[in-house]
């Protein structure tokens, strides 16, 4: 594809290129290049071409079309798509009836003129950080196909990073947008919890689930988020005047030196030396683990009684263990969440924006999917969310921003990403910061086939 969503919409709206041509080109690229990345699970060929023809007819007729006219996109395989069974990355739901309508956020994007062309790979039931799926395969990182794409929205991040799609949708419970966005070096947003509707999105952990977009540029990401949210964001006048601080302590452990360097540069850009150490982050992560295991386990308990062997073994064993958790622990985790969230929100009286690493380092190799945490070697699948998971408890919006390409011996040329965190409802601050960092060359990484990140 190798064009931004904004550029595609402009060419289609002004009749320079037909929506059909855009969609045909995209479907062809997905059909031929997906075997390298394994990011697509199903192509929506017939539907996409029909939508493109309808859009072209409207444009020819002089009818108004939306801001994303003719822009192809993909959805993580847990968004309802009318007429299709929602798999949630599993085969366990194959007997379910097809969805009777698109998920609510998909409807909003379609109303803005965007055209869904594919469903995308994920960890089964979104329970993992690696997109290693026993049913649909392992999604490979377009920056180095020997490496993980991250997860659980790995197909979404990889399809954007590969230049196959200008944007894609994912979900983020414990970091499932932020982790793959970071490892594949694209932009991703976990919006304020509860802001975007989850109707028609297969649940994982009702207490923590959110949905959000991935894009190759921060401008595209904002445009897509605004369409999903139903209105344009308020502009920030004095972006350089925002109070920026770095999260220290837990968020600096086992971090790649190149990532620390990137954070230093951003802090210096804002003239800040402020570092904040959150209390009880280990317990926050533990609470997120317990809440996720318990709610996920309970959700699947009826099927785990009947067809346990139909699940991806890695998912199944975690869900079974979660289903048996004692209520004392789960209730305590939810009480802790209340306490931790209150403290996090109070921080935003001192600062406007916090920055932190998204993952400890670059994407692990698929054949060696481990991390070093606190001197221990642990599985990447369960631990890539080391820095994202605790922040999920707070409900704040978090922008995952790719650091620019850098020659670093520690990363072997693989990309790194950061989290930019604002108070609830302050997505406009995140995009303002993202755009100013992109313009300054401190964030942004070109998707494959696109020479430079946006500078607007």
């Amino acid at each position, binding site marked *: 594809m190798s064009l931004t969503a904004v550029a595609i919409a402009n060419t289609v709206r002004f009749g320079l290129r037909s929506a059909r041509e855009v969609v045909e080109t995209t479907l062809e690229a997905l059909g031929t290049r997906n075997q390298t990345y394994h990011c697509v699970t199903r192509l929506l060929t017939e539907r996409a071409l029909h939508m493109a023809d309808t859009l072209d007819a409207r444009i020819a007729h002089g009818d108004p079309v939306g801001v994303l006219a003719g822009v192809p996109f993909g959805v993580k395989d847990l968004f309802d798509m009318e007429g299709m069974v929602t798999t949630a990355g599993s085969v366990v739901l194959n007997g379910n009836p097809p969805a009777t309508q698109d998920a609510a956020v998909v409807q909003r994007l379609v109303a803005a003129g965007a055209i869904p062309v594919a469903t995308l790979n994920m960890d089964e039931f979104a329970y993992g950080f690696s997109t290693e799926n026993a049913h649909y395969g392992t999604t490979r990182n377009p920056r180095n196909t020997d490496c993980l794409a991250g997860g659980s929205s790995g197909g979404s991040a990889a399809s954007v990073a590969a230049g196959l799609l200008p944007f894609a949708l994912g979900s983020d419970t414990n970091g499932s947008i932020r982790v793959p966005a970071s490892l594949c070096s694209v932009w991703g947003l976990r919006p*304020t*919890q*509860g802001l975007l509707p989850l109707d028609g999105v297969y649940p994982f952990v009702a*207490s923590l689930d959110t949905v959000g977009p991935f894009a190759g540029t921060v401008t595209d990401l904002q445009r897509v988020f605004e369409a999903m949210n139903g209105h344009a964001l308020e502009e920030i006048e004095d972006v350089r005047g925002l109070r920026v601080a770095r999260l220290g302590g837990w968020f600096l452990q086992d971090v790649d030196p190149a990532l620390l360097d990137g954070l230093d540069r951003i802090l210096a850009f804002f003239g800040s030396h402020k570092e904040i150490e959150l209390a*009880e982050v*280990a*317990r926050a992560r*533990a*609470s997120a*683990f*317990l809440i996720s*295991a318990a709610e996920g386990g309970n959700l699947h*308990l009826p099927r*785990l*009684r009947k067809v*346990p*062997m139909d699940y991806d*073994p*890695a998912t*199944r*064993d*975690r869900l*079974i*263990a*979660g*289903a*048996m*958790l*004692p209520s*004392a*622990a789960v*209730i*305590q*985790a*939810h*009480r*802790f*969440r*209340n*306490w931790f*969230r209150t403290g996090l929100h109070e921080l935003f009286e001192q600062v406007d924006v916090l920055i932190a690493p998204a993952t400890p380092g670059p994407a692990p190799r698929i054949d060696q999917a481990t991390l070093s945490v606190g001197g221990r070697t642990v599985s990447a699948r*369960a631990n890539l969310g080391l820095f994202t998971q605790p922040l999920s408890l707070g*409900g704040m919006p978090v922008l995952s921003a790719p650091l620019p390409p850098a020659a670093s011996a520690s990363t072997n040329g693989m990309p790194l990403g950061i989290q930019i965190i604002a108070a*609830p*409802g302050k997505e406009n601050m995140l995009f303002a910061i993202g755009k100013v960092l992109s313009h300054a060359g401190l964030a942004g990484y070109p998707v494959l086939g696109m020479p430079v990140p946006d500078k607007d």
Partner: protein
Amino acid sequence: MQSDTEQDTGDLLAAARRIRLTIPDACLPGVTANTRLLQTYIDLVLELDLPDDCPPAYEYAP
């Protein structure tokens, strides 16, 4: 006398029975490993005393 492993397995199967779940033999090693991991998180969370007026936060309200 039971070994620790036998005791763990016995506890696991008893917990499963309470929620009317049968754990297939093939799943026992994986479920046991995950249960042990979750126990470390349980210990961590339960060690902290929270004030009585800190209720559970099941939903998010900005």
